[in-house]
């Protein structure tokens, strides 16, 4: 095995003489690695952007939603609400600086001739505007903040981008459940396409419209006093809610979720983790197919080169030498494929990044870590070697006399 560099040269030369087929085989690996690198660097970028957004909201936000903590989906779409006394209990908890309540529901709205399903979000406008501006980064793109008492609404930035065929302008009217509302303002992007597609209106108007009980809310966001530990305040809120519910309704179960922003980050990360696992799974299938391609090419190549193998064995090549040469060939295919996939993947992710930054619906940068690149290369070389193992062993075990006789 002391001649590994020589075997390497022989392997490289063998690949070069079959360059078209070698490149096609390499392409099979390129596609798999390309998928992994581009999608993972994008999703990693999205993850970082979301975490940043969560952090920009302040590390000390607590969200309270009705429904069991175990089922996030149920919490988001379930019909349960926080009652007025629940909200009072939250407001009275020690360490709570301000409470922002919000209700939302999907509803069909009409603008000119078009109808669309959008998310309607009701907020106590007078109370919450300050919090929204200060902590959530809300600001006006166009128009004036809606005045409570009037039938005025605020819409997200997406409305003026591509929500409706006809351009949406401040001052125009939309119809919800047969009632007309005036668009008072358009907000600057809030960070996500879904947030930017919503309608925001006063909770009073909202509850009239959808028939929700006055004073209740779908969720509450709590801004806590500076210097306090969010987890402790969250515990206190839980305790207060529990007491209130027991007193009023005799309930004994925790039918609400109190989530700190830290926990929220954990949840989004775990969701993105699942997405990333799916990406890796599918890309692995692509790489597996690429690997089978390598095996196939190597087998073909061994059939063609049977005589060469016979010659090499006749002039003194040991089985291990032949095995090494073929394994190195397969490994090189894997390596070049991996390298190509990484370059193409980064290139593609960069284009997506530039595109989204030019259209800042959701601003993020791709994230390419050295470990991702190392992983891509390692994985592709490994695939190459494993795919080449069978053919290489077959080549190594050929009997010299049979190999020389073949194709005479």
């Amino acid at each position, binding site marked *: 095995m002391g001649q590994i560099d*020589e075997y390497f040269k022989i392997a490289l030369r063998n690949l070069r003489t079959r360059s078209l087929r070698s490149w096609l085989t390499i392409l099979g690996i390129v596609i798999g690695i390309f998928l992994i690198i581009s999608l993972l660097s994008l999703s990693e970028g999205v993850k970082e952007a979301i975490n940043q957004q969560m952090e920009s909201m302040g590390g000390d936000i607590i969200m309270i939603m009705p429904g069991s903590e175990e089922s996030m989906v149920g919490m988001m779409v379930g019909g349960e609400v926080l009652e007025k006394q629940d909200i009072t209990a939250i407001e009275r908890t020690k360490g709570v600086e301000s409470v922002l309540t919000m209700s939302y529901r999907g509803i069909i709205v009409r603008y000119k001739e078009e109808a669309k399903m959008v998310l309607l979000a009701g907020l106590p406008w007078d109370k919450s505007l300050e919090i929204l501006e200060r902590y959530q980064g809300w600001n006006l793109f166009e128009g004036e903040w809606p005045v409570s008492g009037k039938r005025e609404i605020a819409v997200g930035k997406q409305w003026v981008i591509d929500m409706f065929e006809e351009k949406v302008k401040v001052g125009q009217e939309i119809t919800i459940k047969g009632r007309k509302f005036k668009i008072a303002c358009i907000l600057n992007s809030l960070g996500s396409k879904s947030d930017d597609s919503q309608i925001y209106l006063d909770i009073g108007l909202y509850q009239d419209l959808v028939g929700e009980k006055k004073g209740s809310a779908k969720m509450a966001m709590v801004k806590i006093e500076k210097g306090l530990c969010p987890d402790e305040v969250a515990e206190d809120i839980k305790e207060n809610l529990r007491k209130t519910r027991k007193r009023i309704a005799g309930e004994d179960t925790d039918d609400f979720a109190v989530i700190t922003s830290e926990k929220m980050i954990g949840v989004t990360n775990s969701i993105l983790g699942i997405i990333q696992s799916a990406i890796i799974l599918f890309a692995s299938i692509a790489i597996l197919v690429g690997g089978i391609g390598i095996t196939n090419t190597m087998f073909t190549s061994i059939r063609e080169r049977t005589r060469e193998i016979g010659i*090499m064995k006749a002039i*003194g090549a040991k*089985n291990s030498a032949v095995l090494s040469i073929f394994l190195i060939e397969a490994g090189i295919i894997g390596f070049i494929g991996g390298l190509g996939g990484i370059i193409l993947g980064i290139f593609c992710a960069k284009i997506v990044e530039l595109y989204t930054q030019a259209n800042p619906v959701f601003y993020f940068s791709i994230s390419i870590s050295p470990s991702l690149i190392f992983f891509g290369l390692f994985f592709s070389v490994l695939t190459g070697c494993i795919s080449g193992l069978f053919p290489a062993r077959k080549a190594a075990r050929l009997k010299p006399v049979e190999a020389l006789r073949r194709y005479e």
Partner: protein
Amino acid sequence: MIKEKIVKLEDTWKVYQLGKVELVALKQVNLNIDSGDFVTIMGSSGSGKSTLLNIIGCLDSPTKGKVFLKGKDTSLLSEDQLSQLRGKTIGFVFQEFNLLPNLDALENVMMPMIFQGMSFEQRKKRAHDLLVSVGLGERIYHQPAELSGGERQRIAIARAFANSPELVIADEPTGNLDSKTGKKIMEILTDFHKKEGKTIIVVTHDPNIANYSEKVINIKDGEIVINHKQKGEFLWGK
């Protein structure tokens, strides 16, 4: 002085199984070849001469019987040990030249030395010297496809002598060449034999070629029929 037996075959059989038919290629062959001999194995097509050569060269193993190379029983050696033995002790010259098509002349001659772990500089020098000695000093960077049959066979001879083997085996070395080129090839082989005292075994069906050797072995239907010394005056007569 008793010469060392470089090749010794004891009751060697080779039987090929072709479906249900058994084809006997070698029938109880006993053979001794002295170190330093120039031997020709003659026989018509299908006589078993190539089989005999493959067995002597450790490219194939006998069905029955024993093969000794330099006194060593080759049936006791592993595949890797056989490879090592071939690389070090035996040089091959084939009828079809069997050069590696992707390599140039120099690299082809250097190849056997790679497997013996020789350094690049040593290999290059040795290969260059050998190519010069077979008269190809000017064409060392040519690929086999750019060379004539005779030139290719000369590369193959240079390659066979790369590791200074004690035994060189040539299977119909002139079979694919015209008589003039064939003569040149035989002269190169005899030259190596005379200068370096190597044992050379040539398989042929051409009596003219046999005239170059000191000893002729005739083989017919897998059996050795005549095993006689050529008269001295025939030698180098052509």
